[in-house]
C-alpha cells in the first residue's frame, strides 16, 4: 500500500512528529469517548476522600471524594474544547483581520494596529480576571478570555506576513488581469499565509491549555467543579506530600498533551516549509 509506505517513511524521518501524532490521536480519542471510558461522572462525590490509587480507583480520589481517573478522562474533553475553540476562533479571526488590514493599508490599517497594540499592551491575566468577574466564571468565558488574548497576536503576525506577500509580483499581475480584491485575497494572499496560520494554531492550542491551568491558580480558570486539569493541579498543590496522585495524574496529562501537540506541530511546520527539511548546506 502506498499510504502505508508513505506513513512508514514519515515515521522514520520524523520520529518525534510521529510520537506527537500518536499522542494527539490518543488525546482526541479519550476526549471523544470520555463517557464510555470514564468509570464515573466527573462531578460525582460519593466516595471517600484522599484514597490512594487502587484497583477500584486507579488514580485515587481527590479531596472531596471524586474519582480522579474519571476527572482526568473528562478533562481531556474540556482541555481540548477550550484549546481548540479558543485557538481556532481566535487565530482565525486574528488572521483574517491581519490579512484584510494589511491588504487595505493606509489609515484603516494604522487605526486597527493601534487597537491591536492597545489590546496587546494589557496584561493577559487582568483581561481574564476582569472578564470572569464581569461575566461569571464558566468554561465558555474562559474560551472568550483566551480568544481575546490570541486575536491581537495572530493579527499582528499574519499581518506582517501578508504585507510581504502583498509585494509579490503575482499579486500585481492578478490585479492587472482584472481580478477583484476579494479574489486576490482569497486565492493568492491567504494561501501564502497558511503555513504561518498552521504554526500559530498548533503552538497555541497547547499554550491555551497551559494558560487555562495558570488562570485556575488565581481563580479565573474554568469553574472548580469542572474536570479541568489545571483546576485539579491547583487543588492538588495543597497536598503534594500526602496525596501526590492528585498532582501527578493531571500534571502528566497536561504535559503529554503539550508534548504531543507541539511535536506534531513542529513536524507539520517542517513538512510545510521544505527549506527546513534535511541537513545544512
Amino acid at each position, binding site marked *: 500500500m502506498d499510504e502505508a509506505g508513505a506513513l512508514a517513511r514519515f515515521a522514520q524521518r520524523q*520520529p*518525534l512528529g510521529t510520537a506527537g501524532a500518536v499522542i494527539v490521536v490518543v488525546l482526541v480519542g479519550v476526549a471523544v469517548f470520555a463517557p464510555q471510558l470514564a468509570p464515573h461522572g466527573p462531578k460525582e462525590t460519593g466516595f471517600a476522600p484522599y484514597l490512594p490509587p487502587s484497583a477500584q480507583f486507579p488514580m485515587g480520589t481527590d479531596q472531596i471524594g471524586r474519582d480522579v481517573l474519571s476527572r482526568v478522562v473528562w478533562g481531556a474533553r474540556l482541555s481540548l474544547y477550550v484549546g481548540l475553540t479558543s485557538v481556532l476562533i481566535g487565530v482565525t479571526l486574528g488572521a483574517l483581520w491581519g490579512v484584510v488590514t494589511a491588504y487595505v493599508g493606509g489609515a484603516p490599517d494604522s487605526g486597527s494596529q*493601534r*487597537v491591536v*497594540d*492597545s*489590546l*496587546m*499592551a*494589557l*496584561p493577559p*491575566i*487582568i*483581561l481574564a*480576571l*476582569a*472578564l470572569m*468577574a*464581569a461575566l461569571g466564571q464558566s468554561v465558555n468565558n474562559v474560551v472568550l478570555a483566551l480568544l481575546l488574548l490570541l486575536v491581537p497576536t495572530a493579527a499582528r503576525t499574519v499581518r506582517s506576513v501578508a504585507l510581504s506577500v502583498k509585494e509579490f509580483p503575482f499579486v500585481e499581475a492578478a490585479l492587472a488581469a482584472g481580478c477583484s480584491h476579494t479574489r486576490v485575497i482569497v486565492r493568492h494572499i491567504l494561501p501564502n499565509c497558511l503555513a504561518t496560520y498552521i504554526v500559530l494554531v498548533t*503552538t497555541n492550542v*497547547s*499554550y491555551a491549555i*497551559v*494558560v487555562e*491551568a*495558570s488562570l485556575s*491558580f*488565581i481563580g479565573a480558570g474554568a469553574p472548580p467543579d469542572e474536570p479541568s486539569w*489545571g483546576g485539579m*493541579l*491547583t487543588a492538588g*498543590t495543597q497536598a*503534594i*506530600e500526602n496525596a501526590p496522585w492528585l*498532582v501527578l495524574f493531571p*500534571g502528566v496529562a*497536561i*504535559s503529554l498533551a*503539550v*508534548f504531543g501537540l*507541539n*511535536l506534531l506541530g*513542529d513536524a507539520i511546520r517542517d513538512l510545510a516549509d521544505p*527549506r*527546513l527539511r*534535511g*541537513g*545544512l*548546506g
Partner: protein
Amino acid sequence: MRTYITRRLLLFVPTLFGASLLIFVLMRLVPGDIAEILVYQTGSESSAVQKRQIEQIRRELGLDRPVATQYLAWLAGAVRGDFGYSYSQRRPVNEILAERFPRSMELATVTLLLAALWAIPLGVVSAVRQNTWLDYVVRVLSISGLSLPIFFTGVLILYLLVRVFRWLPPLEYVSLTEAPVENLKQLIWPALAQAYYISAPIMRLTRSQMLEVVRQDYVRTARAKGLGERAVMYRHALRNSLLPVVTFIGWWGGRLLGGVVIMEIIFAVPGMGLALVQAVSYRDYPTVQAIIFVMALIFLTVNLAVDVLYGWLDPRIRYG
C-alpha cells in the same frame, strides 16, 4: 531613523489612550466597587447603615460623578504624572508604583538573562546538529518548559527545596542595593521558573531562524569564499538569525516587566503583578489604571527599543 523613532513615539499616545480607556471601561463593567466592598465585607451593620456608609464613601472618592467625568479627571492627572490616591491603601498611587516597579524589573531582568543564556546556545546547537539525537534532546527539553503551568513549576520548586534541603528562600523582600545576596537568594527561584517557561519558545525560534538563515545566499557566499565552517556559523549565520530572537525576547521582557502575579504569590515577592491583581480584586480604580498605564508604556517602549536595535543591526532593513 530619527523620523521612524519620532513617528513610533507619537503612536504611543493613541495606544496608551486606547489601553487606558479599555481598562477603564472593563473595570466599570465588573460588578461592585470599593464602597460596597469596604462596607459589605464586615457584615456587621444593619442594611440602612450600610447604605448610608456606601453613599458616603462614594461621595468621598468621587465615584458618584458621571463616568465620563471620572475618566477625564483621571486623564488630566495622568498626563501630569499624578495618578491619584489608592482607594484601598489610602496613599498616593505613585508611591505604590515606585515601590513595586523596581522589584518586578529586577525579576524580569534576571529571568531574561537566564533564559537567553540557556535557550540561545541550545537552540544553536539544535540547529547545527539538526536531526541528530542532540537536536531531539534539545527539542524535547524545550517543549518540557512549556508543558507545565508556571504555578506548578513554582510550587514544585518550593516543595523540593523544603523536602530535599529543608531550606526555603527568604520570605521577606530586601532590595538588591540593600543586601544583594539575600535579594538574589529570594529572586533566583522565581526567575528560574519563569526562565524555564519562556526559554522554550526562544530555543525553538533560535533553531528555526538558524536553519533558515544558513540557506541564504550570503552564507553560501561566505562558504564559497573559503571561510571555515565555524566562521560561517558564528559570524554570519548566528548574528542575523538572532534578530528575530532578540525581538521575541524583548516582547517577553515587556510582558515580564509588568510582574508575573503567580510567581509573586508563590515566592512572596511583592511586585507589580500582585499589586495589580489585588487592586482589581478591591476595585481600586486609580491603582489599576496607573499600573496598566505603566505596563503599557513599558511594553511599547521595550518593543520600540528592540525594533530600533533590529534596524540598526540588520543592514538590509531601513526605516524610512
